[in-house]
Each structure stands twice: as structure tokens, then as C-alpha cells.
């Protein structure tokens, strides 16, 4: 499909002083200003596509859209995070990524509508315990309780070794973008780089369906577990202060990633 006709409406960039942080949080007695928006919107009812919301940093849940420019680590510290996305037609598949694909050519991989199953629940629990040191806040069948009512089509990529499910990912499909929700893999097969594999398979799906953007959650420069997103290039991050997407290599990005959360009085 022609990129020109599918280009989302990009909001006009605004100077930083016009951003209106919506909530005050306190961290170590320092007051921070954050963006935390939530709107009750049923996209299905409105007949709207999710892509324009993703393009403005929103995420979708049942009956509402949300966005926030921070997350909280396990120590209770607030960090500024930035939505990450890629243009599918510009994404470079590097030699190391091709090696990951080759290394996993013995797996059986399928992409299909999402269905929550005990196999995925077990893998998710084990993954979460290993990666984050705690059980997930809610099981998958609660997180994806009403699949058919979700505002975007939910899909899964499952990777099987022999008869065992060893990795899966969940992503949402809009009219011209996909949003990667979750990647889960077995730690017993860590050498296979299964997280990278599921991302590559999602990218393959996006390419095969002529989609434009691939959203890969948020980028947190202060958490090493999120830095893998910069291996995929060219990466764009959402500049909250100017409400636009900027390249990872742009001069503004380096400055933006160094900025801590704004404090009251700044």
C-alpha cells in the first residue's frame, strides 16, 4: 500500500512549555511531574483504527486508551520511558539477526489469532519469575480476558521445539501498524535468542501484510533489559515534550534520554 495514503496524522510539534503533565508523584521526597492520560473510548464502537492512537504514544486496553511517560522499577524509582517504533520498510535485518533465524530453523513456528492456553500461562509464569523476580500481576487469561472485544486484532506467534512450546509473543494488528505486546521464552533455551526470534517473526508478518509501522513497547534508557530495542534500526522514539517521533540517532534524542523526570519548579 502507498505510504503517502496511509501516513497517520502526525500532530504538530509543540514546545516543551505547552506540555501539561497530568499527575504529580512523589519520589524520595522530590515531586515529579509526569504524563498519565487515560480516556474511556471504545474504538470498536467508534469504528476507529488504533494506529493513530499508537502514533501518539497511547496503548490500548478494553474500553480505554492510556499513555504514560514513566514506569516504576522494582525499587520504587520512577523512570521516564519513550514509546519505540520502526518503519517496516526501513528496518535492517543484520547478520546477527539472520544468524538467529538460521539457528532456529529447526523450530516449528506459527502465527495465528491469540488464544490463551495453559502452556502459555505456564511459560509466562516461569519467564516472569526468572526475568523480574516475581509472579506477573495477573495471568494471561485475565490480561486478555475478552479477546474478541479487544480494540485491535490480537495475534500470537508460537515457537515449538519438538512437541514443546518454548516461546511465544503476542501482538496487536491495526490497519497499518502492529504493536508488540509481550514476548515470552523458555530460559532453558536462552542460547537461541528466542526474544529476538519472535520480534523477527512479527516483523516478517508485518512485511507480508504490507504494514507500515512496528511498535515495540517503551524504551527505558536506565534499564538494561530494554536496551535490546536499539539493536533494531532505524529506531524512533516518541518525544513527549514535542509530541513527535524522532530518530534514535538524532541530536535531540541523546539530550532527551539524559533528562530525568521533571521536578516541580523546573
Amino acid at each position, binding site marked *: 500500500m502507498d505510504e503517502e495514503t496511509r501516513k497517520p496524522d502526525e500532530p504538530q510539534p509543540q514546545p516543551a512549555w505547552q506540555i501539561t503533565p497530568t499527575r504529580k508523584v512523589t519520589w524520595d521526597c522530590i515531586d515529579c511531574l509526569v504524563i498519565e492520560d487515560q480516556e474511556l473510548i471504545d474504538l470498536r464502537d467508534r469504528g476507529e483504527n488504533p494506529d493513530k492512537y499508537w502514533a501518539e504514544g497511547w496503548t490500548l486496553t478494553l474500553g480505554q486508551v492510556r499513555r504514560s511517560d514513566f514506569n516504576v522499577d522494582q525499587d520504587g524509582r520512577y523512570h521516564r520511558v519513550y514509546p519505540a517504533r520502526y518503519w517496516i520498510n526501513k528496518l535492517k535485518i543484520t547478520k546477527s539477526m539472520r544468524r538467529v533465524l538460521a539457528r532456529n530453523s529447526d523450530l*516449528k*513456528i*506459527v502465527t*495465528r*489469532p491469540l*488464544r*490463551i*492456553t*495453559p*502452556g*502459555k500461562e505456564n511459560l509466562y509464569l516461569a519467564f516472569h519469575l526468572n526475568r523480574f523476580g516475581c509472579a506477573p500481576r495477573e495471568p494471561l*487469561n485475565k490480561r486478555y480476558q*475478552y*479477546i*474478541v*472485544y479487544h480494540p485491535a*486484532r490480537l495475534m500470537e506467534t*508460537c515457537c*515449538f*521445539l*519438538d*512437541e*514443546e*512450546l518454548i516461546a511465544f509473543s503476542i501482538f496487536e494488528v491495526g490497519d497499518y501498524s502492529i504493536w508488540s505486546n509481550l514476548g515470552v521464552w523458555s530460559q532453558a533455551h536462552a542460547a537461541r535468542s528466542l526474544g529476538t526470534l519472535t520480534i523477527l517473526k512479527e516483523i516478517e508478518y508485518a512485511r507480508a501484510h504490507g504494514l507500515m509501522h512496528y511498535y515495540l513497547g517503551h524504551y527505558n534508557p536506565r534499564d538494561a533489559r530494554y536496551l535490546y530495542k536499539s539493536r533494531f534500526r532505524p529506531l524512533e522514539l516518541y518525544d513527549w515534550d514535542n509530541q513527535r517521533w524522532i530518530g534514535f540517532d538524532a541530536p535531540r534524542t541523546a539530550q532527551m534520554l539524559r533528562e530525568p523526570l521533571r521536578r516541580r519548579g523546573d
Partner: protein
Amino acid sequence: MKENDELQLIDPAIMTHVAGLDADGLWQLTLERLDELKRLESFHSPALHGLSYGMEHFEKVFWMFYEEDPDQVRWGLIHDLGFIGKPLRIDAWAASGYLDHAWSADVTTSRELIPEWDEESDAHYFAVLFDVLDADHLDLIAGSLDSFRKLGFADDPAARLTVRTMAKTLRGDSTLRAAYIYQT
């Protein structure tokens, strides 16, 4: 919008056959299988509504629908002749024996049997996505239903029996398969 997926017996050969027919071929097949179509309790072929007004009217209605939306006529016949019997509602948890197994990654899907419909057609709206299962796949589903019964979850003996009967039917007739129909 249905929340649960479905299992139903299908005849993949007739589906592929109908998908490849031209207009005259569709009409000829409709006439050949008219008795079977008349016995359906519910149907997707739009022209069948005209049957009660006589054959002449039925033929007019068929061609009228074909001119308006040929994909819908084609999909209607695929559905009415290709899907056999009543579907069994089944949720992903019950079908996990199949969905969590590597065999589910190897199956033929409806994309290989049926063409992509024009987005303007009603067929695009009504068409379903399904995996084509054989008897071994159905045994996996029966296995997960059994496991959950043994673990003390709510038992559905009718579902277990239906799945096992479907598997037996497939083993007795190699032309048939089962469709795991995703509700989306």
C-alpha cells in the same frame, strides 16, 4: 460476535472445487446439490431464500446475487456444502491439547483452501479462518478435555463424546477433515 471457537467437520475437496468454479460452474453445482441444500436448517447461500417461490424465481435470484456479489455466492456455497453437521463450541482452554502442541504449527489453514475475498464483498465479512485438522489433532483435543476432567475442572461429556466421534468419522472417511474455526 462469538467468544468461543468451533470445531466442525468439513469437506476440503468441495471447498477447493467451489473456490475454482466460474459462474456457470457455480450454477451447475447448485443444481446438482439442490436436494442437499434444501435440507439445510441454516445456510449462507443468499439465493436459497428464493427457493420457496419456484425454480424460475430461484434462478433469477441466483444470477441477481451473482452479479451483485459473486464472492458472496461462492462463499455461500463453500460454507453450505463444505461445512458438515453442527459445529461444536469449544474454548481455547479445552482445545489446548492441540493449540499447545507442535502439530498445530504444521496444519493447512483456510488460507490455502479458499481465496482472499474482495474487501467490498459480504464474503469478506462472513468468511472464517480455520485450521484443517485430522483425527490425530482431534485426539489431542480429546486428550486435553480428559486431562481437565481428571484435574477436577468442569466436565463436558457431550463435548468429549463429540470430539471422539468426529475423530472416528475422519478415520472412517479419508476425504473429510475437521475445522478448528477461530472466532475473531
